């Protein structure tokens, strides 16, 4: 359990660094640290599939971020110029929102089943019958490609959509002259 706490503290700290640091490249590296923290967390949560995907996706996300930053600028010129009157509303709004969110979230979490004892109403069916009905040793694969294969079609389509979207936004000229 201690490892969980240490990792979480590390991740929150790295997240704050990522948000507050002036150099954007360093911010992206901190974001990468959070991502790898999440991957380690997935291993500790007994989710090797997720850890795999998280590590690879994390690397790719950092590559994408770095590609964009190298083509634009390193520096976050908006930091360190002090607060003006216009900044009060978002900060106040965020504080109000954060208080409400934490209050409701903590109250909700207390009434959830405790950590480490999931209900597993539907999932116990998958565990009992997954191998027999689907024939896959990896139950996560059985769920994503058979029991909920339609979700995976949707997920692949989201990726397809975002590729077409990226290519569409990166066109040189929007309108014909």
């Amino acid at each position, binding site marked *: 359990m201690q490892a969980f706490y240490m990792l979480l503290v590390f991740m929150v700290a790295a997240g704050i660094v990522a948000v507050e640091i002036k150099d954007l490249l360093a911010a992206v590296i901190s974001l990468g640290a959070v991502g790898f923290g999440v991957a380690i967390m997935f291993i500790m949560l007994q989710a090797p599939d997720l850890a795999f995907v998280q590590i690879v996706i994390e690397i790719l996300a950092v590559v994408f971020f770095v590609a964009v930053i190298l083509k634009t600028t390193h520096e976050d010129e908006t930091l360190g110029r002090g607060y003006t009157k216009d900044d009060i509303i978002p900060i106040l709004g965020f504080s109000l929102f954060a208080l409400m969110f934490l209050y409701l979230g903590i109250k909700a979490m207390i009434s959830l089943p405790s950590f480490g004892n999931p209900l597993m109403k539907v*999932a116990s069916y998958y*565990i009992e019958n997954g191998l027999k009905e689907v024939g896959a040793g990896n139950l996560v694969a059985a769920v994503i490609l058979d029991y909920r294969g339609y979700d995976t079609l949707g997920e692949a389509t989201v990726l397809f959509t975002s590729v077409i979207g990226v290519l569409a936004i990166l066109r040189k000229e929007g309108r014909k002259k």
Partner: protein
Amino acid sequence: MVVVLGSLLLVLVGIYAILTKKNVMKIVIGFALMEYAINLLFAMVGFKKGAVAPIITSIPPKHNFVDPLPQALVLTAIVIGLGTTAVMLAFALRIYDKTKTFDIDKLRRLKG
């Protein structure tokens, strides 16, 4: 319980970046943080003490398994997150290309 609270805090860090930061890239980073945090929270939901990863290696299976369903859902959510981050980065790249700044105060329409 405290563990889940940690990931909620990480969600808040992301929202903080999205709502109060003035830099386009910082907003994108905030979204990435928020996605990680929600994925983590979702994966924690399925954890079971003393159980192992839901992969059957011998018949009949010997062990007690953790919940495989949240893992499948988080897998989907991670890939969706990467897709949206990529589209956002493309927007950021083109905005810089057109205006030579990441500062949303200097962009005309992004206020409010």
